[in-house]
């Protein structure tokens, strides 16, 4: 069957310590338990989490929702966003099935990036690798005022911003991600087409501002 891979790239740098990182953990938990109740997502969506602080690591490999286990997430260090993008590219090569004559491949992955600061490593190197891969949709979220939306615009057209990185705002972002994954799972099943743009997602809540 054709899976819809969903990659979450989460900033776990020191600045996320405390309330923001707790909200992110909670957000992941709510995301997974909500999607498990959605028949389209439960059958179709697969989830992976890549965190980045001083380095990037995939803390959850691409996993079926029904077997997903909440990972432990801690915040410290800098913001290696470039490395995270490079790691994402490598993992997509490994984990996402390509279409061949005998096998129908997976849908193009959805990517949600959340960061609260400027990258501290060389973004361009990772960005170049990332750009070589095909994604269904990539949403970058600037959590609070510390993140530079211009930098995120280099990664994707779809940039959203949270005014503050408090728990209520982060929570509503994750709710929106969850609704987006639901909508995406349904879309691929119904129309047999990849998810293509922000317009195909449910409208974001008031706390999540689309950066034009």
């Amino acid at each position, binding site marked *: 069957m*054709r*899976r819809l891979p969903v990659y979450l790239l989460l900033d776990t740098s020191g600045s996320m310590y405390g309330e923001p990182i707790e909200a992110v953990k909670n957000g992941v938990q709510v995301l997974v338990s909500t999607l*498990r109740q959605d028949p389209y997502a*439960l*059958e*179709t969506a697969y989830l992976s989490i890549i965190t980045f602080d001083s380095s990037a690591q995939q803390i959850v490999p691409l996993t079926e929702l029904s077997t*997903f286990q909440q990972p432990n997430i801690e915040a410290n260090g800098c913001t290696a966003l470039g490395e995270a993008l490079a790691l994402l590219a490598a993992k997509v090569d490994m984990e996402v099935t390509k279409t061949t*004559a005998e096998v129908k491949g997976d849908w193009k992955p959805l990517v949600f990036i959340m960061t609260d600061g400027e990258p501290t490593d060389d973004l361009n190197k990772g960005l170049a690798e990332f750009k070589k891969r095909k994604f269904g949709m990539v949403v970058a979220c600037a959590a609070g005022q510390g993140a530079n939306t211009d930098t995120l615009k280099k990664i994707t057209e779809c940039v959203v911003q949270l005014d503050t990185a408090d728990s209520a705002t982060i929570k509503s972002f994750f709710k929106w991600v969850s609704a987006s994954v639901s909508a995406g799972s349904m879309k691929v099943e119904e129309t047999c*087409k990849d998810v293509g743009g922000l317009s195909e997602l449910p409208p974001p809540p008031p706390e999540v501002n689309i950066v034009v």
Partner: protein
Amino acid sequence: MKELLEKIFENIYSNGLSEERYCDIKEFISEKLISEYNDYVMNREIVAKNKVNTLDIVLPNAKVGDYYSQLLKIEDEEIIEYWIEGLKKTGLEVVSEIVLDFQKEDNTMVQGSANLEVFDNDNIECQKQVIGTKNKGLVIKGNPIMSGDFDLTLKYKYKGWFDGCNILERKLRFAINPDPRSLWKDIPTDKNIKFYKDDFVSEYVTVLANDKGLQKDIVAASKRGRSHAHEGKARDDDFKLYHNDENGWYIIAVADGAGSAKYSRKGSEIACETSVEYCKQALQMPTELEETILELSKAEEGYSNRSISTLIYNIIGGAAHKAHRAILDVVKANEDQVRDYATTLLLAICKKFDFGWFVASFWVGDGAMCIYDKERQYIKLLGTPDGGEYAGQTRFLTMPEIFTPESIMSRLKYSIEEDFSALILMTDGVSDPFFETDANLNKVEKWNELWENINKEVDLTDDNSESKNQLLNWLDFWSAGNHDDRTIAILY
């Protein structure tokens, strides 16, 4: 203790000690020692807590209805007893691990406290808790009855614990997935919608045996996909069967209305009705066609017969084109868009002659149409699906480019067959789960699998009209991620 204190005082305060000073010192020492002791107790708790909190305890997710069994064992000298609370609602229970090596079994501990009376939050009654030890773990098992995220509590006692010490705990999150089948709703389609169509339908065409022996019958079934049922949307697929009892011609059409098109349910209906009706008329007295077929049957293999191509072109190509026109007429009458009626069409006509079978077909869009013979392990695909490299790029009967002469020719197929087990026509709701890709349609193993799968539930014996209901039920086969409408027609 008292003696010890007095000895100390004698040494330090050799000149004697007032009663007040003595009491004061005593009080001071007691306070100090108690505080030291409390710290000591707390440290012991912290050490135990750190130990347990860093243990890699993972309870794999369960699923409603699927039997679950998971061992939880803490093999640590410092943790003497542990148990789990919070499972009551889940339908699961805890039992002791069965330890085969009795030498290792911790008899003293188990016998002493195997059943501890504790207060379980889920249940306002005392109940027996099963206790785990270093050598004998806990097994969580049973059939989960309820989905959700559950917060379980792992409670434990550390080495040196005695009545009056705190029982320590660690939260464990435990997820029970719902059975995906239970999440799909089945909402009947509103009968007042434009172009209402039944959510499922099945049909059997009985052709009685004659002087030439048993005759093949046709069975077909069509059912709404889970995603349509979930939202109360109508079935987009359709089919139409016909047999001319006078001259023996069979006509079968199967169509799949495009999921994204508003009135594709009507498009597929018109496609089937019109094309079958057209063929029906054309095959009333097909003297020229039958004569040409006889000629063809005597010809050598590879011999190309232009007149048969022209006749097929006129009958089946004509039927497809008539269906295309009929859709355009309805579009015009309703002032809709052509794309709202997008549909595929698989159309086959066939007849048994003395030399064997003649089969001719037209195919536009995805799905599959194939002659299958189990004995000879033979398949003949009647065309190629319009899939393209990416799914969803299928062609539709509603597209004008289908009706260029070259395109029509490429979609027409005819074939002479000695005999076969079945002529099968199906929409992609059936072909996708079984074949996945176009390349697999050419593999006889895949057709064997499909055939076996159908025959497990559907009794395809001659004149068994009950098989239409069996086929309808068979269409409910479970395939994760495949929720499309399903339609299949079998001539056998």
